[in-house]
């Protein structure tokens, strides 16, 4: 599904990632963990085209997407969420999800401004599908509310709902559980499983180890910009190198 081949990223004099290679299987939930500064978010930014890697390649399926612009990835089925929830705050919850259907619709400025028949039909389709994704994520009751007024936990879910509207093959989630209470985290785990069951591959960066060990099929550990280990949750828990990276070796 997603394959990274020897990704290296150097910021000025700082090497953020060194020769990181990894593979994400289709229909899996893969966790990327590691101490702060390990390069997890940098990795996401490279995959989604926000940063350009110094060397190495990114493949989505068979396609080399190394030089693709961020906005062209949604159409290929690759989307992400952000660590600091990037909602469209001045828009309603429904409208937020409707933006997710941008690549599923075609009307240009002229047909939108003059309300041509095709645009009206398309607009109906967009609203219907957006409602579907709000139902899927359990946010339908909040549809007409302003996104700014959502509690933080729901904001995180809305961000996921918005990416689902793109009908992606792969979602990258950057710390989806950060700032959630334990009840919200449980609901999130249920949602992530439900997303995987609907045929979407999930990769998440996460610090909540209970969540990661609970829902992930495989885990990749980064430390100081290098891949330290990869394997099932059980293998990772028993890995000596991982334990010493987290707890410090003395």
């Amino acid at each position, binding site marked *: 599904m997603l394959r990274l081949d020897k990704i290296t990223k150097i910021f000025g004099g700082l090497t953020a990632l060194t020769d990181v290679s990894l593979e994400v299987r289709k229909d899996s939930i893969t966790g990327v963990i590691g101490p702060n500064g390990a390069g997890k978010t940098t990795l996401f930014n490279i995959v989604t085209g926000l940063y350009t890697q110094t060397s190495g390649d990114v493949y989505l399926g068979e396609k080399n997407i190394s030089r693709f612009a961020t*906005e062209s*990835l949604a159409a290929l089925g690759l*989307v992400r969420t952000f660590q600091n929830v990037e909602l469209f705050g001045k828009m309603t919850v429904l409208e937020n999800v409707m*933006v997710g*259907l*941008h690549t599923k619709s075609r*009307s240009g400025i002229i047909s939108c*401004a003059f309300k041509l028949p095709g645009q009206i039909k398309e607009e109906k389709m967009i609203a219907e599908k957006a409602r579907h994704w709000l139902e899927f994520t359990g946010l339908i009751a909040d549809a007409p509310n302003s996104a700014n007024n959502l509690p933080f936990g729901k904001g995180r879910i809305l961000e996921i709902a*918005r990416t689902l509207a793109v009908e992606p093959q792969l979602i990258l989630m950057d710390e989806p559980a950060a700032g959630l209470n334990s009840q919200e985290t449980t609901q999130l785990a249920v949602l992530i499983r439900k997303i995987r069951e609907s045929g979407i591959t999930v990769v998440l960066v996460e610090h909540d180890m209970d969540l990661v060990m609970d829902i992930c099929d495989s885990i990749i550990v980064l430390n100081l910009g290098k891949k330290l280990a990869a394997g099932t949750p059980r293998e990772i828990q028993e890995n000596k190198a991982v334990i010493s990276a987290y707890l410090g070796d003395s």
Partner: protein
Amino acid sequence: MTKEKREILIFFIFTLAVLITPFFLQGSYFLNVLVFIGINTMLAVGLNLLLGYAGQISLGHAAFFGLGAYISGILTTRFGLDPWFALVIAAVANGALAFVIGFPILKLKGHYLAMATLGFGIIMFIIFNETVAVTGGPSGLSGIPNIQISSLIFDNDLRNYYLIWIITLLVMLFSINLSHSRIGRALRAIADSEVAARVLGVNARVLKVQIFTVSAVISAIAGSLYAHTMTFISPASFGFNFSIELVTMVIIGGLGSIYGSFLGAAILTILPEFLRVLRDFDIIVYGLLLIIMTMYMPGGLISGLTRIAEFIVGKIKSRGARHA
């Protein structure tokens, strides 16, 4: 959906009000002011697409307005073109110019974008002033013909009123439609979080250039109509101060609100009549107005008025409930 229906209903009421207003006015002074309000509303609504929806500043919109006016004025006075035809050429030329400069300029963000558009405005102002052979320079260009539809010549305030306002209403309707469409949502998404919009597949760069172009075309149409109703234009109307006035109209009316742009345009058209005693210092009042509005009513007049209306309705409802 209901919000959109409400907006369309308000639009019909507004249209009706615009159409019948002249019957209640005596003398041409008020009509003349209303013609100016119409032109300024068109400009403010056009700038609002860029500033209010997409969140991109332009401190050079007076230049697009001026370019529209000059192209129309020159083509009709020197080359004898029909004003309608000149208007179309002005709109297309402005659109092409905005499209070409939009790509490099709109890569910039925030203060840098403000500076670049400011620079564009100043360059155009210098061109209007210095190319005396073409534009007539500081002393202006006169004898611009009125717009004509077969034998109907738009040469008095009443006729101009209807001409300007019908086109302004069309621009407003266009803008309302756009705001409730995928393009309008994508623009507002860019304003709130450009990176999140791009991740969802919105091509922010192209869309910003497109809306900048549309905004410039609307300004050109306003400029052309201005030239043909005034029959005289000079660079003084298209300088930096007017660009600032346009931004002020959009902000004090309410970013992203079409009726807010109308309110802002109306206030800033009428206000100078009262500020004449201050002469050139009137810009201080605009500055103060901007500061006060952004501090105490950041959503603009329109959201302030909505809040007051909701408050009153709430009071009435709670009183009714107590009686029942």
